């Protein structure tokens, strides 16, 4: 498993070779702040919490995470380096995990750089920092789930744009499962239990649970499972495509 670390380091450093990472982080921070203060009415709410900050994350990540994950495999396939990479003595699992971790830690770094907003709310009032810590964990897990979906879909194609669009679409679907959007569409055609079961697969509803400040084992297990399943699918996709 030493190779996971080696792959992680190469991939992670790769984000910073070009200015893309810096541009990404700056825009991410600017948008997160703009949504919090202008759309989320941070000041008008007059409450010392970060709900107006975290509530946007599922939608913000919808575009930012696919932008991180789209290159993971599609680029290797496009440039042909995948042939070099996968003939090194490394298992497909280690390759998938190493790449995923690099993307996840990079997303974590962008998330961590939002700390001034945490300082602000502590300066202005006395927020429940436990809830904020839980929210940060939830946000990080949500990013991980998006990125796991993104790695799998990136392995499907050699075109990064296709990987991006597919990932946005799939992540959006997993979001709206819990947003009640299906209720009017499916209506009474399906039993309510089915809709509830479907909603339990939603990334959004589990995120909303955590942001309330309650870290339930079920929510953590959900994210662990989501990341695990999508990464397994990514490994299978890489192997199948290779055989093709």
């Amino acid at each position: 498993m030493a190779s996971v670390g080696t792959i992680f380091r190469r991939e992670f450093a790769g984000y910073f070779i070009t200015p893309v990472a810096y541009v990404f982080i700056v825009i991410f921070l600017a948008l997160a702040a703009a949504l919090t203060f202008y759309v989320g009415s941070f000041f008008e709410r007059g409450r010392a919490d970060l709900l107006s900050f975290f509530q946007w994350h599922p939608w913000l990540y919808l575009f930012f995470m696919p932008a991180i994950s789209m290159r993971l495999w599609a680029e290797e396939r496009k440039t042909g380096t995948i042939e070099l990479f996968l003939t090194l003595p490394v298992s497909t699992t280690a390759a998938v995990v190493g790449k995923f971790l690099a993307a996840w830690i990079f997303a974590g770094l962008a998330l961590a750089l939002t700390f001034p907003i945490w300082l602000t709310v502590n300066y202005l009032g006395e927020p429940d920092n436990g809830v904020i810590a839980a929210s940060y964990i939830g946000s990080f897990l949500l990013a991980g789930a998006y990125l796991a979906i993104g790695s799998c879909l990136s392995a499907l194609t050699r075109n990064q744009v296709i990987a991006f669009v597919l990932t946005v679409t799939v992540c959006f679907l997993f979001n709206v499962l819990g947003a009640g959007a299906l209720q009017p569409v499916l209506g009474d055609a399906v039993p309510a239990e089915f809709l509830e079961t479907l909603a339990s697969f939603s990334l959004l509803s589990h995120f909303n649970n955590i942001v309330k400040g309650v870290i339930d084992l079920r929510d953590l297990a959900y994210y662990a499972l989501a990341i695990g399943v999508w990464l397994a699918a990514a490994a299978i996709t890489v192997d199948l495509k290779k055989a093709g």
Partner: protein
Amino acid sequence: MLALVAAEGLTKRFDAHVAVDRVDLHVGAGEVLGFLGPNGAGKSTTMKMIAGFLAPTEGRAAICGHDVTDDPIRARRNLGYLPEGAPLYGDMTAGAFLAFAAAMRGLSGRQGRAAIGLAVERTDLAEVLAQPIDTLSKGFKRRVGLAQALLHDPPVLILDEPTDGLDPNQKHEMRALIREIRLSKAIVISTHILEEVDAVCTRAAVIAGGRLLADAAPADLAALSPLHNAVSLTLGARFADAAVASLGGLDRVAGVRREPAGPDAVSLTALSGDGGPILADVGMLVQAHGWEVGDLRTETGALDDVFRRMTQPDAEAAGHG
């Protein structure tokens, strides 16, 4: 002798298209197998399967006794592979890339530095280590790819067109390097430059349409040429008709080719009927008739001639028909 590279019945089908059809190959230590074939013949596909990148539809391949499908990690540890076109991580520097490859091979610390140092020295890369790979010339990129394949001093090397894009000096160095390292290794190189086979290979395998057509020493392969042991001579045009008739009359001559060779001269080539040497017979004939002959020599038979005949028999027939 233990075959370090073994492929048995290797077959790859893409839907209905058969890219590689039941190829058997065995390469032992000290051997350099030159893999010849026109573009699209299945050379790269075969190499990809042996390298364990592409899963064969049928058949199996093994590196140092480790099946590339069932025991891929161990097989790959014993393999240095230069894929077609030498794909590399373009935004890394050459040095960072080699360090990555060494770490992936489990070579770290002093061992890693020594391995990188040796590979850099062998491929003469020292001056470009700090440069991003994207900014390097094609020749340097190819050498970075080769350095990566040599890092761990593997017993098996599979190099897909290692000299493609190199200038004549670099080609010469690449061949010298392959000759230098071949003693303890099994090396498979693909190429469509036939002189390369003469220069470095101990064996040549010809593949076309996915099928292995020949697998022999380059000299034996060249002997398959109709020109093998043929005798060429140049003489004045006024002797030509008589010479063609007399040469054609020799028992051991299968035929005579005639080509103009200047304003008042023709070049005749007497083909050996049994593939044996006929220079003595032709020489005696020349003396007996007192022809003024310039340039009398035995042809060894050209690989490219054999190659063309094997890989496109129809075109060959049309050309001489």
